[in-house]
């Protein structure tokens, strides 16, 4: 096992009833890289993320995090340092942007139920301390102006950004992004790409990125896994993937 691997996916198979969603998928993710998973609709990209984050339990195979923790059906991935965003946005609709980020500090806070209810001394100081951490993220993502607005009332692009902030507030080692740029215009996509690169470079977070926009993935990913109908058809650097005949066939239907 390569000591640089933060995540190793070994022969993962997942099926629902008779439908095979993932079929013996292997790949690894090295610490500090941007690893993209691409593929046509229904290729099993989101299912792969759901396996990594413990929502789905694959019937076969292993998911090794940092060489020791098996993520297969794991319940406590947050404590291990894995955070994710959702394709359809999974924010807490009726909380403010600020409280959404604060909610993600949950596992880093120590106050118990009684301390929360009394809000004396320790709890108050702890809230302020975590508020400072969250405010730094708010500055980083440039959402100061909406910090006290209910996220349900925000436009789509900003909600995506708040969700990214919430995932970061967990201080993850591994960040799973499920189509962070779906439904955005070019300008919003460029903003989001800049945030992803900043997170990667300045915060040193390893990122697994599921995305449809090929140009963008080619630009920012270090290595790419291509899935098609649940099987891995290619794995490599962006320039190799761009030349791969299998990938071209899967995406365009025929060799061009």
């Amino acid at each position, binding site marked *: 096992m390569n000591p640089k691997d933060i995540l190793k996916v070994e022969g993962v198979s997942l099926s629902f009833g008779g439908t095979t969603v993932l079929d013996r998928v292997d790949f690894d993710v090295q610490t500090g890289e941007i690893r993209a998973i691409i593929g046509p609709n229904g290729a099993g990209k989101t299912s792969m993320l759901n396996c990594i984050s413990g929502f789905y339990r694959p019937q076969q195979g292993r998911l090794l995090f940092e060489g020791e923790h098996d993520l297969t059906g794991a319940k406590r991935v947050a404590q291990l340092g894995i955070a994710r965003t959702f394709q359809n946005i999974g924010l807490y609709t*009726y*909380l403010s942007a600020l409280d959404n980020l604060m909610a993600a500090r949950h596992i880093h806070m120590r106050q118990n139920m009684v301390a929360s209810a009394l809000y004396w001394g320790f709890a108050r100081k702890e809230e*302020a301390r975590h508020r400072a951490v969250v405010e730094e993220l708010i500055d980083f993502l440039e959402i100061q102006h909406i910090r006290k607005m209910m996220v349900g009332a925000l436009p789509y692009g900003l909600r995506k950004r708040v969700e990214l902030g919430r995932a970061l507030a967990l201080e993850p080692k591994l960040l799973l992004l499920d189509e962070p740029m779906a439904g955005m215009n070019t300008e919003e996509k460029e903003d989001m790409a800049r945030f992803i690169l900043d997170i990667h470079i300045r915060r040193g977070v390893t990122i697994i990125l599921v995305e449809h926009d090929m140009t963008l993935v080619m630009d920012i990913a270090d290595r790419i896994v291509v899935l098609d109908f649940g099987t891995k058809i290619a794995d490599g650097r962006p320039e190799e993937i761009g030349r791969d005949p299998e990938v071209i066939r899967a995406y365009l239907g025929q060799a061009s």
Partner: protein
Amino acid sequence: MAMLRPAGDFDRSYEQDMALLRQPWHYWLLGIGLLAAFTLPLWGDAYLVATANQIAYTVIAVQGLNILTGYTGQISLSQAAFMLVGGYASALLVIHAGLSFFIALPLAALAAGAIGLIFGLASLRVKGFYLAFATLAAQFIIPWLSRHTFKEYLGGTNGAIEVPLPQLGGVNFGEVSNYFYISLFVLLITTILMFNISRTRLGRAFVSVRDNDLAAELLGVNLFTYKLRAFFIAAMLAGVAGAIKAHSQRGVGTEFGYSLNESIIFLGMLVIGGLGTNLGPFLGVAFIILMEDFSDLLGGVLAAAFPELADQLLTSFRPIFFGVALMLFLIYEPRGLAHRWQLVRAGWRLRPFAR
């Protein structure tokens, strides 16, 4: 939107920004409100004080329901049953263990909380509609047990036992004007706790369970233990409310209400007031109780005018008004009076530019 503040108000620390009372007029308003409440027995008549007393302990029960249903999103139809547990626990501790009411009250809260935990276990498996039915079990089982078991202690089929008045020094709590201070003081404490819960780790965890349980679990919130915590707090506050109500009415048992009807009215109060807001329980409870009093008044007047229909007129206005009010709120203001109040406040801040 409701958080917009006029320009020129700058915080120097996060603690300042998180404080509930931030401007001089907040303190003035709170001071005047508390003064009015604490001097109520001096300037209000007996009816007003008795109504305020009833509102005070009902608000405590609805605050509990607000934690469970409003913040955590777990529908419960058993709040009245947990009140019954609290009422009996406090009464029995005072009668048979010889404890002071002021010690029995927190113990009654814990007793009701423990029973709440047992019925909250169902929330591990079921959600929404099905959970409502699981809590319905508590609402049937607890009153049934109170009539059919330990008859010498719980009053058996009489459905009631006598509850002594609280003793503290030489104060006569038989006067509602004195008893009112107990309800008011406890309400003050529970209200502070509610505000604190809603702005700290515990409250955010509750809301995350309500708004997106999958994301909450992924972000490290243990769904099961937080649902249980919500059940515990809800039942505990019901227990407090039940104990205060029992000693205030000098009796406890199924004859004094505590049925499914009451549980549903609590839920209606919460919806009308505003689910998941700290102001909601106050507005909803006051609205419904005043409306009930108005229905009785109207029924009385009409019964005097049409004596041959007296029986129907005296009893039918409460359920009719409650049903109509609930329907109108669900259609026109599903987020309750508290939301309406927020809109008014936001409009006032932006005046004269927008509404």
